[in-house]
């Protein structure tokens, strides 16, 4: 038999002036199962709490209802009091007599009656409460960081500096990401590599960081605190432990004309290569798809050249499995190629390039050693046109969103051009200038005021080639929509920043959600910007949305601090408001029919499949099982389950129906 105690609080005058608290307590006392009912002036005060504790001990209460303020205010207080008196804290409920009753209604019988109803509902509920224990999950204190761009580098260093182990996995032969390709960076125009490369070296040397380059995530299992990652280390064809990075092999390589990814196609590289001189690790890989030996079975010039005999043509991919407690996803972005733009020539004009290619032209480490020369004939362009929003804000053909950073880098490009080509003229065709950020507007104004970049407000309709010039046909909507035609030597498209082509695949591997544009979704756009909806997985950088370096780094540090915060404890502990699938003695096992509607309902991937096997190991049934460390307790699955096999602890069907039946 339940033995419920009811405690009605006056909150001074707050409740007492409107509700007849004594009458409520009396009425509660008459409810079946209630063995104790009192009212008191301030329940949350020490004497008030003692009242409850004593009653629990003396009356051997099996449940407590406090009729007072909002549970959002004092539920923890009273649950703690119960626990101190030896009653499971989850056997305590609160009826909201203040915010939902005395403060919002007139004094009188009706209001008192409502208070009685509210108490009765909770009494019926609490009779059906079960003792629950907070969920505890052990934590593996090692983080996996996916992607070695500035986001991944920053996150890895922050976590490692907090004293935790980090495994950094980068797909390319070197870390660095897009930032390594940039020339100078807005709004300060500091040299990108100068600020990045020291960080890259730090990563390589940090005792807490294990670096896997030329590697990819194969699979991820488990849940917060207890993931197991399998990583594929692609065959470099070079034994890293022997290689000294001398570069002799590269000098001798038979294949020399492969478009360099690092130079965005503007330079050439060899088949055995390091992507750029400051690469980390500075050890080559063989691009097997392009290597003569792998194509024809002959060559091995590199092997002959190598003084340390490090070349390994027979090396195979290697799978490594590691346990980690948290994952930071920092896989970055991609840009649309010029071939995407039909009206700008389907990528057929060599002197129509992307912003990223311009970065390489402007970079001292680039194919032109920082001189602005156009790809077709290596001439210095005297008239250059920058086209903003190329592919962005173009629902018809491109993407609907604003890529956010291109207004700024276009201003930067125009500025760098003006600094390098003194007799040149830069034009920018734009729709809006989006320069929100510290010193950003000032930066754009400088381009206009000091460097005399001519900004034309209008979108370019078409580009075609004539007599070695690129005819750019636009319009100035500020000048009564007058046509503006520029005969340009070089055209730079601020092409859209898009998600990585394999973002969807990766998201599915990680079981995290992504938006319609394949950018990964944070858990909440304002309040949980670095967490993802799968507990224990965090996000940083441009894989979440287009962003510039300052924002990327801020988010990376945010993600790292979340990880470090998590790792500062040995166990995770959470409220046990989670779903459970019922289990019954065989032969029923469970009423779950295995329809897995709940699985589709759950936004957190908390539903797992459990196989029930007979003694002989034969499969009897597959039923749903909730991973309680992942479940957030939203109850969506419960509402969907047609066989009522899954229930939400703390808000079970029985409890909720009991509340209703009390009315």
């Amino acid at each position: 038999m339940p033995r419920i105690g009811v405690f009605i609080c006056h909150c001074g005058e707050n409740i007492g002036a409107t509700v007849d608290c004594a009458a409520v307590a009396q009425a509660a006392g008459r409810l079946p199962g209630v063995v104790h009912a009192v009212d008191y002036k301030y329940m949350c005060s020490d004497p008030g709490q003692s009242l409850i504790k004593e009653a629990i001990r003396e009356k051997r209460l099996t449940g407590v209802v406090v009729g007072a303020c909002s549970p959002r205010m004092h539920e923890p207080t009273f649950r703690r009091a119960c626990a101190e008196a030896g009653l499971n804290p989850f056997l305590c409920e609160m009826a909201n007599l203040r915010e939902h009753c005395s403060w919002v209604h007139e004094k009188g019988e009706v209001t008192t009656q409502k208070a009685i109803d509210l108490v009765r509902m909770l009494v019926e509920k609490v009779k059906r409460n079960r003792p629950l224990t907070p969920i505890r999950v052990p934590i593996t204190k090692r983080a996996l960081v996916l992607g070695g761009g500035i986001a991944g580098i920053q996150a890895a260093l922050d976590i490692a500096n907090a004293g935790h182990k980090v495994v950094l996995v980068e797909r390319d032969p070197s870390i660095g990401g897009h930032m390594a390709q940039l020339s100078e960076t807005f709004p300060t125009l500091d040299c990108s590599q100068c600020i990045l490369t020291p960080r890259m070296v730090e990563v390589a040397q940090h005792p807490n960081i294990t670096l896997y380059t030329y590697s990819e995530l194969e699979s991820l299992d488990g849940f917060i605190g207890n993931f197991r990652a399998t990583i594929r280390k692609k065959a470099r064809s070079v034994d890293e432990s022997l290689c000294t990075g001398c570069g002799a092999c590269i000098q001798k390589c038979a294949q020399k004309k492969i478009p360099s990814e690092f130079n965005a196609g503007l330079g050439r590289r060899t088949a055995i290569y390091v992507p750029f001189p400051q690469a980390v690790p500075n050890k080559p890989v063989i691009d097997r798809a392009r290597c003569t030996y792998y194509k024809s079975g002959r060559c091995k010039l590199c092997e002959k050249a190598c003084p340390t005999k490090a070349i390994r043509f027979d090396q195979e991919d290697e799978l490594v499995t590691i346990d980690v407690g948290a994952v930071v996803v920092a896989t970055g972005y991609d840009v649309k190629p010029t071939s995407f733009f039909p009206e700008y020539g389907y990528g057929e004009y060599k002197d129509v390039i992307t912003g990223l290619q311009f970065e390489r032209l402007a970079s001292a480490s680039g194919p032109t050693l920082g001189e602005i020369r156009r790809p077709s004939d290596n001439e210095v362009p005297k008239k250059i046109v920058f086209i903003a929003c190329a592919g962005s804000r173009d629902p018809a053909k491109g993407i609907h969103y604003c890529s956010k950073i291109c207004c700024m880098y276009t201003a930067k490009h125009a500025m760098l051009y003006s600094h390098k080509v003194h007799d040149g003229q830069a034009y920018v065709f734009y729709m809006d200038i989006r320069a929100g950020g510290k010193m950003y507007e000032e930066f754009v104004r400088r381009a206009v005021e000091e460097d005399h970049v001519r900004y034309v407000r209008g979108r370019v309709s078409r580009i075609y080639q004539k007599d070695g010039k690129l005819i750019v046909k636009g319009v100035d909507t500020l000048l009564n929509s007058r046509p503006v035609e520029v005969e340009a030597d070089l055209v730079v498209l601020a092409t859209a920043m898009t998600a990585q082509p394999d973002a969807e695949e990766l998201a599915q591997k990680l079981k995290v959600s992504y938006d319609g544009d394949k950018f990964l979704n944070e858990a909440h756009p304002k309040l949980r910007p670095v967490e993802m909806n799968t507990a224990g997985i965090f996000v940083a950088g441009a894989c979440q949305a287009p962003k510039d370096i300052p924002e990327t780094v801020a988010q990376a540090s945010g993600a790292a601090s979340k990880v470090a915060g998590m790792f500062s404890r040995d166990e995770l502990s959470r409220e046990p408001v989670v779903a459970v699938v019922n289990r019954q003695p065989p032969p029923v096992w469970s009423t779950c029919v295995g329809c897995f509607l709940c699985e589709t309902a759950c936004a957190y991937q908390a539903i797992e499949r459990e196989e029930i096997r007979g003694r002989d190991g034969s499969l009897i049934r597959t039923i749903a099982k909730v991973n309680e460390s992942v479940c957030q307790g939203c109850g969506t699955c419960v509402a969907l389950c047609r066989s009522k096999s899954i229930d939400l602890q703390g808000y079970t069907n029985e409890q909720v129906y009991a509340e209703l039946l009390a009315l």
Partner: protein
Amino acid sequence: MSAPVKHADGTAGLAEAVAAATGESVFNCYQCGKCTAGCPLAEEMDLAPNQVLRLLQLGQPGMDEEVLGSLSIWLCLTCEQCSTRCPQEVDIPKITDWLRQESQRRGVANKKAKAILAFHKSFLDTIRRGGRLHEVGLITTFKLRTWRLFQDVLVAPKLLARGKLSILPHRIEGHAGVKRIFERCEAEPANPAHKGDQA
């Protein structure tokens, strides 16, 4: 479809009527100007294509009338260059088609568009009569309508000499049916979906 836009005096704006009749919202246009930049006739227009849309978007007193009385709507060749490249997929020719018909209905067509209108009307006249275009008939009617007696006189003999002009019109068997099609199409108001009438 877009929200209705009212004029200050409470009458329905042209933008709303356009949306009702064509399903095209002028509010989708974000004034990038790409349409105008590619339009072959923009230089000859009194209002650039994007400006037509802008006037409709603002719908201030007199703006709708300015659009309906413009020469631009008659110059448009329906070449679809603008709509093909428009990032917001605004179907300008479709809107223009409707504006022309509305302009005629209200009798406010631009005076300079007279020749164009005359040509189109003459064109339809010959079809109304025979079911097919009769080029000699077309040119003659057009001349009569515009008094442009001498222009094209130079071309006609060339055509005749090369056996390209048939003097006698061809009449299809179903010409009566075609005539009925004309009658039905012209009987109902040309722009049935237009609701907002102005004083």
